[in-house]
């Protein structure tokens, strides 16, 4: 590719074009907004991590020594709320999706740049409200806000926290809306639907869930809040309401929302595997459509959270069967990634390691999802540490690994610098070991009957809990490393070429970091993605060339 070879420092790009506060806080550049999100969610990741540390410390011994029941309830609630609403849901879409989507489709920006900025402000406003709630004493309802925990039985900051989740929800809706419109109307000439990178397909499916699921949780939380504020009884059985209705409404969003927390990660993996295996992706269309299958079937599976709530057994059987169906598109993806690796000429760089962690850990998380989707098994393990381990294998083992894979893979594009490879590999292995040591024992604990959400436990569970806490310390250390060396690399890292991985996507055909408007000229797309093969002139063929 005719790369732009001017040295980074001499060239104007989206980062060095203006250093004023105003230019950041009023920016409409999708890349700068992505950076704003990156900084904010990193902060919330460490806030959530702080609560997790206290939780794990308390669980080192069977009795309550660090905190007592009430504080413990608040800690796991605030851990869940922060991690889910203010870290995991925005993680890949708001940071990497924002940054990459326009670049990948050859556009100058998202369709609605000012709306994009508004999304960030709404996100921050929501976060501020949640943080204010924490400062004012915290909440103790669980991140699920079930009544009556969230209605008559709690005198903690439910309304303020709910308001935070409600406002942040609108940020998510607007981001999804922006992505969908952008993918429809802003594609570069020649970029047909089946030439789109799978990252883009995955974000389209994610956006559909954001658009159609999030308003349901918004109204659900709003109703619970109104119930508290106006003292009415929509969900309160004492006033004629039905708490199970809340659970239905809540999970109607929150089950699809778990796919907001995994589909973008799947999109990332689909980009990274072919690049480091130097092979065309296996089953492109299957992977593209399986994202939609997951999004659509995901909307019909929510009742598997209500198996023990008194829901009709026929409903439970139906929801169980539908939940099994979700396994099919998930497996399609996993097999296709594996097939792509097969006989590839693999370069074991850090992003690939994280992608491999993703595949392995997602398989464990997904298969244990099938365990809990089976009625008799779920009756046994429901509300135990087995479920906790299951969803952490998906959320952390899946999405957080994908997020780290993506940060490393696209860091040269973000910053114009390379991260230090040796240290990054060390961190990747530390995180992998720490993660498994933290969460694998929890499968066993749950299977043996340790319930979740308690600050004390029976003495025979101590060994496994100590192991888990030891793992958590390793994991925490592992998470701090990238923070340090990413910042270090901004100054001391090797300067990055426009296309350091010799990848095919359009985002690699412009300079690192890109200029404010992304491309010198609108690129013309001539090929599908992932044309990696020894037959090509440089062993790969970029998706497009700049119009001359």
């Amino acid at each position, binding site marked *: 590719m005719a790369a732009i070879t001017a040295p980074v420092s001499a060239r104007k790009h989206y980062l060095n074009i203006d250093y004023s506060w105003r230019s950041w806080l009023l920016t409409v550049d999708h890349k700068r907004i992505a950076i704003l999100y990156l900084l904010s969610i990193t902060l919330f990741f460490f806030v959530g991590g702080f609560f997790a540390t206290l939780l794990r410390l308390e669980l080192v011994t069977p009795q309550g020594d660090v905190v007592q029941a009430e504080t413990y309830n608040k800690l796991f609630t605030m851990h869940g709320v922060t991690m889910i609403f203010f870290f995991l849901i925005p993680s890949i879409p708001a940071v990497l999706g924002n940054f990459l989507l326009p670049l990948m489709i050859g556009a100058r920006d998202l369709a609605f740049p000012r709306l994009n900025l508004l999304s960030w402000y709404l996100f921050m406003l929501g976060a501020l409200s949640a943080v204010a709630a924490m400062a004012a004493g915290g909440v103790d309802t669980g991140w699920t806000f079930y009544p009556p925990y969230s209605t008559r039985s709690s005198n903690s900051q439910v309304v303020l926290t709910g308001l935070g989740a409600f406002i942040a929800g609108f940020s998510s809706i607007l981001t999804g809306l922006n992505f969908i419109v952008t993918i429809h109307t802003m594609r570069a000439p020649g970029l047909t639907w089946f030439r789109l990178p799978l990252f883009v397909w995955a974000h389209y499916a994610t956006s559909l869930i954001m658009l159609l699921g999030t308003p349901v949780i918004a109204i659900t939380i709003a109703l619970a809040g*109104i119930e508290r504020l106006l003292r009415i009884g*929509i969900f309160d059985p004492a006033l*004629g309401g039905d708490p199970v209705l809340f659970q239905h409404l809540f999970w109607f969003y929150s089950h699809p929302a778990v796919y907001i927390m995994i589909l973008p990660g799947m999109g990332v993996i689909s980009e990274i595997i072919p690049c480091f295996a130097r092979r065309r992706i296996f089953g492109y269309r299957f992977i593209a459509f399986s994202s939609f299958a997951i999004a659509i079937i995901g909307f019909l599976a929510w009742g598997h959270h209500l198996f023990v709530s008194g829901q009709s057994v026929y409903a439970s059987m139906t929801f169980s069967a539908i939940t099994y169906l979700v396994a099919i598109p998930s497996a399609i993806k996993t097999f296709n990634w594996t097939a792509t690796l097969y006989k590839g000429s693999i370069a074991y760089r850090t992003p690939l390691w994280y992608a491999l962690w993703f595949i392995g850990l997602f398989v464990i998380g997904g298969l244990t999802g099938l365990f809990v989707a089976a009625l008799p098994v779920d009756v046994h393990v429901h509300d135990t540490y087995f479920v906790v381990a299951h969803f952490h294998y998906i959320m952390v083992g899946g999405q957080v690994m994908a997020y780290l894979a993506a940060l490393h893979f696209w860091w040269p594009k973000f910053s114009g610098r390379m991260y230090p490879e040796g240290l990054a590999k060390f961190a990747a292995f530390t995180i992998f070991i720490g993660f498994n040591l933290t969460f694998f024992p929890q499968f066993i604990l749950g299977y043996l009957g340790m319930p979740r959400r308690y600050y004390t436990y029976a003495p025979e569970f101590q060994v496994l809990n100590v192991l888990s806490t030891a793992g958590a310390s390793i994991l925490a250390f592992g998470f701090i490393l990238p923070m340090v060396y990413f910042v270090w690399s901004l100054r001391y890292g090797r300067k990055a070429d426009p296309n350091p991985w010799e990848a095919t996507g359009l985002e690699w055909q412009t300079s690192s970091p890109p200029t*404010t408007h992304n491309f010198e000229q609108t690129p013309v797309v001539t090929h599908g993605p992932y044309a990696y093969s020894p037959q090509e002139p440089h062993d790969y063929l970029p998706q497009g060339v700049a119009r001359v």
Partner: protein
Amino acid sequence: MDDARTRMDEPNPLSATVDRHGSPYLAHHFDDLEQQFESARLGTWAFLATEVMFFGGMFLAYTVYRGAYPEAFAEASHHLDWRLGALNTIVLLTSSLTMALAVWAGQTGRRRPLIIFLAITMLLGLVFLGVKSVEYTEKYLEGHMPLLGLPFAWEGEHAGQAALFFDLYFVMTGFHALHMIIGIGIIAVLIGLAWRGRFNAHYFTPIEMTGLYWHFVDIVWVFLYPLLYLIGGIALGE
């Protein structure tokens, strides 16, 4: 890097109206006005899909409880004034007509009719809210406002279930009224912009999008009215 391009790379925080191809209405990141219009339209429809799901949650709650407590709901529904509801339905449907006319005036670049139709639409919206507040006041005076621990005057059985009906009534019509207020606010802004001649036959996107929103809010009311006021039939002679 060529010179023209360098200039374009300069920061332009709120640059929605940068002139790139001679049109002052084209935002910097679009290629042409058609692409810009298509984006706005798709975005509005997507937003309305979100709104459908938002109201859908309340309609679901309504359906569940009406299915569970049919008598109490019918009984409670008789305490709403179907005449005022009907009046408001007419007011809103008329406002949809004037909104459609405003969109037509916008598309054809007629400034005066545009302002007039927008103003009538806004006025009708305000009438709707006025009638609504009369109804709310009435409910308050009759003791049929079981909020904030206010006394609930219910002679008859199933007071709790009837209270649930009124709770849903206030929540659903309240959210609807909130959407009306937002709509009226947007129309007010549009009138201001039209006054300053910001719209013409080539650029009327905001008017058309506001029109879609306004019709959506009307349609919600078209569902709310029968579901809240007319269940169990109405007694015309009353």
